C-alpha cells in the first residue's frame, strides 16, 4: 500500500535547529543531526533541513551537517536554503543529500530547475513555494527571500511552471498559516495539488492531529510537513501516524 508521508522540518541557523512563528522570533531547538536521527527512529518518512541563514559563510557548516546526516540517517533527506547554482546542487548531493529545495533562486532563474533536473534527475529537485493570500482574496502570491519580497506572481501558475520545467516535488508553505497552529491552508494546498502532476508537500499551520488528516484528504497533499510541533514534543510522529492509520489513511508504521 502506497503511503502518505510525514516529514519533520528542521530550520537550521548557523548549524543549530531553530523555530519561530511566521518567519520571525527564532528559538534554539538543538543539534540538527541529533534531532534528525531521533525523528528517524520515531518514524519520520523523510527529513527536510532548511538553512535559513543561507549566507555564503554558513555554507561550510551546512555541508558538514549534510555529511554527518548522510552517515547517520538512512531515510531520504532534503536540503534547502541559499542554493543558487547547479554547482551548489552538485556539492550538496555529493555529500549525501537526496533532494535539494530551491526557492528564491528558482524564482530569479527558472532555468535552474530544468538544468538541475536534466543533470541530476527530477527526483532531487524540490521547488519550495512560500505563498500568501492576496488582499482581495482572489488567490495567492509567491514571495521570495524567506517571505520578505512579494513577487506579484500567482502561486498556482508558478507551481505549474515549476512542474513543466522538471521539478520533482513542490514544498508548499502557507505564510498566512505558518506558526499559527490553526491548520494548513487547505484551499491553497488543494489548488496546487490539483494543478500539478508531481507530489505536493503541505507546510505551515499544523497544530492538531486532524490538521494532518485534512491536508491529506481535503487538501489533496501527498505529504505533510511540520516543525515546531515535533521539536517541542507537543506531538509524536508515531501518534500522528496511528491517528491517521485509524482514520483510514495509509501510512508507514
Amino acid at each position, binding site marked *: 500500500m502506497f503511503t502518505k508521508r510525514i516529514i519533520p522540518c528542521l530550520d537550521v541557523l548557523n548549524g543549530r535547529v531553530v523555530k519561530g512563528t511566521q518567519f520571525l522570533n527564532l528559538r534554539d531547538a538543538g543539534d540538527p543531526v541529533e534531532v534528525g536521527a531521533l525523528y528517524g527512529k520515531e518514524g519520520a518518512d523523510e527529513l527536510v533541513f532548511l538553512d535559513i541563514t543561507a549566507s555564503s559563510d554558513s555554507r561550510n557548516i551546512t555541508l558538514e551537517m549534510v555529511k554527518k546526516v548522510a552517515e547517520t540517517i538512512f531515510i531520504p533527506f532534503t536540503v534547502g536554503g541559499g542554493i543558487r547554482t547547479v554547482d551548489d546542487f552538485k556539492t550538496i548531493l555529493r555529500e549525501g543529500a537526496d533532494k535539494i529545495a530551491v526557492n528564491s533562486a528558482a524564482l530569479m532563474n527558472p532555468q535552474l530547475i530544468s538544468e538541475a533536473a536534466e543533470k541530476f534527475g527530477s527526483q532531487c529537485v524540490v521547488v519550495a513555494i512560500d505563498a500568501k493570500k492576496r488582499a482581495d482574496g482572489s488567490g495567492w502570491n509567491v514571495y521570495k527571500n524567506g517571505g520578505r519580497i512579494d513577487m506579484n506572481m500567482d502561486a498556482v501558475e508558478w507551481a505549474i511552471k515549476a512542474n513543466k520545467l522538471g521539478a520533482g516535488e513542490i514544498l508548499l508553505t502557507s505564510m498566512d498559516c505558518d506558526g499559527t497552529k490553526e491548520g494548513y491552508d487547505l484551499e491553497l494546498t488543494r489548488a496546487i495539488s490539483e494543478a500539478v502532476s508531481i507530489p505536493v508537500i503541505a507546510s505551515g499551520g499544523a497544530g492538531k492531529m486532524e490538521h494532518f488528516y485534512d491536508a491529506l484528504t481535503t487538501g489533496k497533499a*501527498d505529504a505533510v510537513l511540520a516543525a515546531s510541533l515535533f521539536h517541542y514534543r507537543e506531538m509524536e510522529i508515531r501518534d500522528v501516524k496511528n491517528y491517521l492509520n485509524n482514520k483510514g489513511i495509509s501510512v508507514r508504521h
Partner: protein
Amino acid sequence: MIAIIDYDAGNLRSVEKALLSIGEQAVITRDADVLRKADKVILPGVGAFGVAMEKLHQYGLVDVIKEVAVSGKPFLGICLGLQLMFDSSDESEGVEGLKILPGKIRLIPDSEGLKIPHMGWNSLNIRPGAKLFQGIEDPAYVYFVHSFYLDAENKADVAATTEYGTLIDASVEHENIFACQFHPEKSGDTGILILRNFAAL
C-alpha cells in the same frame, strides 16, 4: 569488499555510507580489475536509462559487468541499476540494456489520484524464502522514486512486488543476481537489513 560501480550516477555515496554503517568495506570504482576482484558488486543509479547506458559504454563497463554477473559473485542492481540489467526501457527506445535478465522496463500507467513519479514509501509482497528479505516481517515498507517499472519476463525471478496503479516487480533474485527497484540505502531499518542480507551472501 563490495565494489560500487561508478558511472557518474548519483547516489553512490548513500550506498557506500549505508554499507559502512553495517561494518562492510566498500569501494566506489570503475576499474575493471577492482570489479573482478571484489567479493560482491553493486550497480546503483539515478537518472535516465539511455544516458546511463551511454555512460556504461563510455567507461568500458558493459563487458565487465556482464562478466561479473555470470561469474557467480553476488551482484545487486539498485533503482536505475535494476532497470539497466534488463532488455530495454520505454524511457529510451532503441537503447539496449545489459540483458543480464529478460524483461522490459515500462512507463507507470496514469491512474486516478496517483502522481508520477512513484515517490515515497510503499509496502512489499515478499516471496517466501527470498534471500534478500530474510528476517523482514510484513508489512515491509521501502522507499521508491521512479517513473518506469520492471515487468520481468521470468516471473519465477521476482522476489518482491508492490502496487502503484499497476503491479510492479520490485525486486528480483536469480542465482547470484539480485536487484531492487526501491532504495534499500534510504529505506530505514528494513533497507539496512536488506543490505546486511546481501553482504552476508
